């Protein structure tokens, strides 16, 4: 299905680190990749002089020029198609969706062109689509959606979703190195709210590998994105001893890491910000239920948003999101 070539494992050249916010880390990863690959082009609405609505490409046009850092007209489909054209012509492309919600206007190009071209005639589509995503920012049904599940159900794509600045930078580099089309989800709510020490040098974090954020014995929490931070809070709040797995990549996802943890704890809760029905939680829970059946001491529980659009009003929104329900579900699971 995929071009078997994957991103090389690249270690940072030095141990130098600086505190970087999630947004800065992404920006840094892109900038260093622009330096490394002279054929890499970034396209998106208002990404040039303006630096993008979230400022992820601030300063890029000055450093790399208007040829490679391109403001586009407001049209998602032709631009995603153009990214594929650049790849066919031997180049690399990053496309920034202004908000992940707007990808639906370029959906066909992604699921039918980017995703299927390598399978059909062996041409790699070396494209990264950046997806500023997620809720909790009081922005209503069209600037808050989680739509990763559609892409996880599209063979041929890779889907990446970092939860921490360090992973965000390294995964961005890998996504750009990888010759396959990568949907790169970035949670808007994390852009400026979390920071950590991140390597200054260029490095990659392997696509397809989960990360054990916390180790514990009583339950496995499988999540990604904002869910990781909710889980951290919940663990702190409840004092529960849990394995906390941040998937980091949603397609292909790290079945080994998940199975290993489940075999150890015998109890699992899958948490995501996206809505429940048909969400990725179903895939993961079903996989666990099928392949770890004999190791389960309790039903695999899913915690997810309500099956509605994302409401704007702050109270409605927090009722929609699973954060509060998750803590209850987690406690209940431990008493099963």
């Amino acid at each position, binding site marked *: 299905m995929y071009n078997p070539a994957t991103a090389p494992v690249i270690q940072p050249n030095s141990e130098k680190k600086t505190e970087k916010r999630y947004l800065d880390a992404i920006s840094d990863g892109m900038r260093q990749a622009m330096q490394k690959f002279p054929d890499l082009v970034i396209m998106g609405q208002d990404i040039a002089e303006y630096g993008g609505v979230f400022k992820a490409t601030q300063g890029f046009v000055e450093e790399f020029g208007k040829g490679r850092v391109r403001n586009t*007209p*407001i049209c998602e489909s032709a631009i995603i198609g153009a990214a594929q054209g650049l790849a066919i012509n031997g180049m690399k492309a990053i496309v920034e969706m202004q*908000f992940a919600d707007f990808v639906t*206007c370029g959906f066909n190009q992604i699921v039918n062109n980017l995703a299927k071209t390598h399978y059909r005639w062996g041409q790699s589509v070396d494209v990264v689509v950046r997806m500023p995503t997620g809720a909790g920012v*009081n922005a209503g049904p069209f600037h808050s959606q989680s739509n990763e599940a559609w892409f996880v159900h599209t063979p041929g794509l890779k889907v990446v979703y970092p939860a921490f600045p360090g992973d965000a930078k390294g995964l961005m580099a890998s996504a750009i190195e990888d010759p396959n089309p990568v949907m790169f989800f970035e949670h808007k709510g994390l852009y400026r709210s979390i920071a950590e020490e991140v390597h200054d040098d260029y490095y990659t974090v392997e696509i397809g590998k989960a990360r054990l954020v916390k180790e514990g014995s009583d339950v496995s929490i499988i999540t990604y994105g904002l869910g990781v931070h909710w889980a951290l809070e919940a663990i702190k709040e409840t004092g529960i001893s849990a394995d906390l797995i941040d998937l980091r990549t949603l397609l292909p996802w790290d079945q080994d890491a998940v199975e290993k943890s489940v075999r150890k704890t015998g109890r699992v809760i899958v948490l995501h910000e996206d809505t429940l029905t048909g969400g990725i939680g179903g895939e993961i829970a079903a996989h666990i239920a099928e392949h770890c059946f004999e190791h389960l001491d309790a039903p695999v529980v899913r915690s997810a948003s309500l099956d509605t659009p994302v409401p704007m009003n702050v109270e*409605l929104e927090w009722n929609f999101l699973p954060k509060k329900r998750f803590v209850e579900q987690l406690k209940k699971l431990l008493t099963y």
Partner: protein
Amino acid sequence: MNFNRKDLSDDQLRHIYIELLRPRLIEEKMLVLLRQGKIAKWFSGIGQEAIAVGCGLGLDKDEYILPMHRNLGVFTTRQIPLHRLFAQWQGKPGGFTNGRDRSFHFGTQEFKIIGMISHLGPQLGVADGIALGNLLKKNNQVTAVFSGDGGSSEGDFHESLNVAAVWDLPVIFVVENNGYGLSTPSREQFRMKQFIDKGIGYGMEAVQVDGNNILETYRTFKRIAESIRANPRPVLLECLTFRMRGHEEASGTKYVPQELFDEWGKKDPLNNYENFLLKEKIIDEAFIALNRREIKQEIEKNL
């Protein structure tokens, strides 16, 4: 700016003035509330009011209008009680979405306004369907739908104009050409000289109007609407205008050269019309003061 009153009575001219003033004063209040954190986001239509108001006044009240995020004047000319608008913008019950969606993202059958979703473009196809319904019902109603110059690059713009042309749908496609889509100027959005150049490519009539001249916009909407009611077909209406406060309050205006603000500031739709009415002695300072006071009171009462 040249104003030609033609057959409009003094009363009509005054009424138009009040309708043009109302959205301006509401916006000024909203900008205060925004700074106070009482509303979350605001896309200013200041400088462009003559288009929305011209549309609202030019169409009949039972004809559907599909406005965008800068078209407060459509809502006010339809006399939506302000407390309902304010509740909507603050995400409170009593609005139109009960906090489920934000700002102008709602529709109301009561006032025959169908707001956009955030995505630019889809409302144009919806307008086609509404107009098709009118055509099949043979009720001789017109539908007006708005697009920005930037949003016109979306495929939906093309598909919807084409369908309307082939099906003779009674739709006015209003393009508010304000020279920018967010930070991106026209020259990075398209290459044709003007939007009316697109008409021939759809086999569609196209009309250009000074979007800052309220008598022009009002009369153009009225004239096109009358013509379409008698002879159903789509018309592309390009309104030349400018956003006086940039894209939205949070994004600043740094990316817009000062000259443009200076140039367009002189073309302000409200000031120019006010000056014309004063000069013609159709209104006086007292009239202005009275109406400003009354509208401000209305605003405060509804908050």
